[in-house]
């Protein structure tokens, strides 16, 4: 994984659950960041069994090891037919890598595909040189040196008169203002340019203080650019210790040196963008971080200040005497309530007592009346039971000498002396029979 991928990945919490789409987007990001520009891909063409009438061309590239990669060429079907390309043909495809999100698959998006031995774009001479260089492994991607992300000194091999020179410088400086360029001037056109170019590349490489070297010129005819198809120049570039970016002509132009350089930029402007890519992003990141920490700090301070102000503005801090005054008032209130409560309480007690007293009195009176009525009844009853009452009405009672009342004749045989009790006084009587 590249540094960038590691960085991106490290940002994520390992507990995060990813969706497939997120993984696809993540891969897309990584691929775009790590393979930002176009490059040549060579391999054996494997056509899909059913090549439909789709104008877009879908196929696979395979190499000797059997590794394959899907290749897409939008609107390429017609050109493929025109070139009569068949499965097994060796081709060069120019394009960039991308992720096909719906399937999360890596694919090569071709801008053009040409026969590795096609004469229409590569001359026989260049084809032979390229085949030789490729056979020696000089075109292997594994040989390509990484481009330093934050270059400070940039070597340039070009003509000070070339349009590409100005384009490159100004694009670089517009994206990152402080860079040192070291120019090794050279002709960039015609056969005479070749030794000068070789000389300039070697000189800059030996100078050794540049982080990378850009070999560039603007667009021109195939003859104008021919010097860049020179095999010895290509070998010099391949052998350089410093990473070399080639940016020759326009998008349609491909020269031999583009196959052996560390990176092939399509135009001088694109080369400048690639060179300053990370510097540009880092500057922006730094500016944004500076802004963000300043804001965060300001917020923190403001937050603390507000809290402090709120705390300080509390009444007992601003008016401490008020607290004493408050308590005094409360105390006075309590006292007042206490004093006014006492008589009131006594009154309540007194009236309760009165009520109880009254109830007691009421109770006693009614009890007495009840008793007296009962007494009267009893007296009446008693009066009716008094034998003397009967005597008063004219009856009498006979008592024997033992004072027992005589209730039947057998109790008093003839001759018995009795006492007759009358209403008033008594009589001594004797029983005759």
């Amino acid at each position: 994984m590249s540094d960038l991928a590691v960085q991106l990945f490290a940002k994520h919490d390992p507990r995060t659950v990813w969706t497939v789409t997120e993984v696809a987007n993540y891969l897309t990001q990584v691929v775009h960041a790590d393979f930002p520009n176009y490059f040549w891909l060579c391999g054996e063409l494997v056509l899909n069994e059913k090549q439909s009438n789709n104008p877009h061309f879908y196929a696979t590239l395979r190499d000797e090891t059997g590794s394959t990669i899907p290749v897409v060429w939008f609107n390429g079907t017609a050109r493929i037919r025109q070139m009569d390309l068949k499965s097994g043909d060796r081709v060069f495809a120019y394009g960039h890598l991308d992720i096909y999100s719906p399937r999360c698959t890596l694919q090569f998006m071709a801008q053009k595909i040409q026969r590795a031995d096609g004469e229409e774009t590569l001359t026989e001479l260049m084809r032979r040189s390229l085949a030789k260089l490729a056979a020696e492994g000089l075109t292997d991607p594994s040989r390509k040196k990484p481009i330093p992300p934050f270059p400070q000194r940039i070597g340039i091999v070009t003509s000070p008169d070339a349009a590409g020179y100005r384009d490159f410088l100004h694009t670089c400086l517009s994206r990152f203002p402080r860079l040192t360029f070291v120019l090794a001037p050279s002709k960039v056109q015609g056969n005479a340019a070749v030794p000068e170019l070789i000389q300039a590349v070697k000189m800059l490489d030996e100078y050794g203080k540049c982080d990378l070297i850009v070999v560039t010129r603007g667009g021109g005819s195939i003859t104008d650019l021919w010097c860049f198809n020179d095999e010895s120049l290509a070998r010099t570039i391949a052998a350089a210790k410093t990473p070399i970016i080639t940016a020759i002509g326009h998008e349609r132009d491909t020269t031999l040196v583009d196959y052996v350089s560390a990176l092939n930029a399509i135009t001088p402007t694109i080369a400048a963008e690639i060179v300053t890519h990370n510097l540009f992003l880092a500057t922006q990141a730094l500016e944004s971080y500076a802004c963000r920490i300043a804001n965060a700090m300001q917020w923190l301070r403001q937050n603390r200040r507000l809290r402090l102000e709120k705390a300080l503005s509390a009444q007992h801090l601003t008016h401490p005497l008020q607290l004493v005054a408050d308590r005094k008032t409360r105390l006075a209130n309590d006292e007042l309530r206490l004093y006014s409560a006492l008589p009131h309480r006594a009154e309540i007690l007194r009236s309760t007592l009165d009520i109880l007293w009254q109830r007691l009195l009421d109770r006693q009176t009614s009890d007495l009346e009840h008793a007296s009525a009962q007494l009267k009844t009893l007296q009446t009853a008693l009066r009716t039971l008094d034998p003397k009452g009967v005597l008063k009405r004219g009856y009498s009672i006979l008592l024997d000498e033992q004072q027992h009342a005589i209730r039947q004749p057998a109790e008093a045989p003839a001759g018995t002396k009795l006492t007759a009790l009358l209403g008033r006084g008594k009589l001594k009587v004797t029983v005759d029979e």
Partner: protein
Amino acid sequence: MPENTSNLTFDDALQQLEGIVQQLESGKLPLEESMKAFERGVQLGKLCNEKLTNAEKKIELLTRQSDEEVSTQEIPFPVNNPN
């Protein structure tokens, strides 16, 4: 005192700075630690800027004096658009 920053690489410094930004933005740090983090963040930012803008804006012309020797001399920037 904040840790020494001079030995850090640009990438490490940038990563630390990023961490500090996130910490500060979360608002969870006590004020004293925030101040320290802020101080370090400023220091890291300065370091990163210094590392980035180490170079001067200039063009040097590289010429060979002899087989062994090359020399550089500053030359002016070309005018952007001559037309």
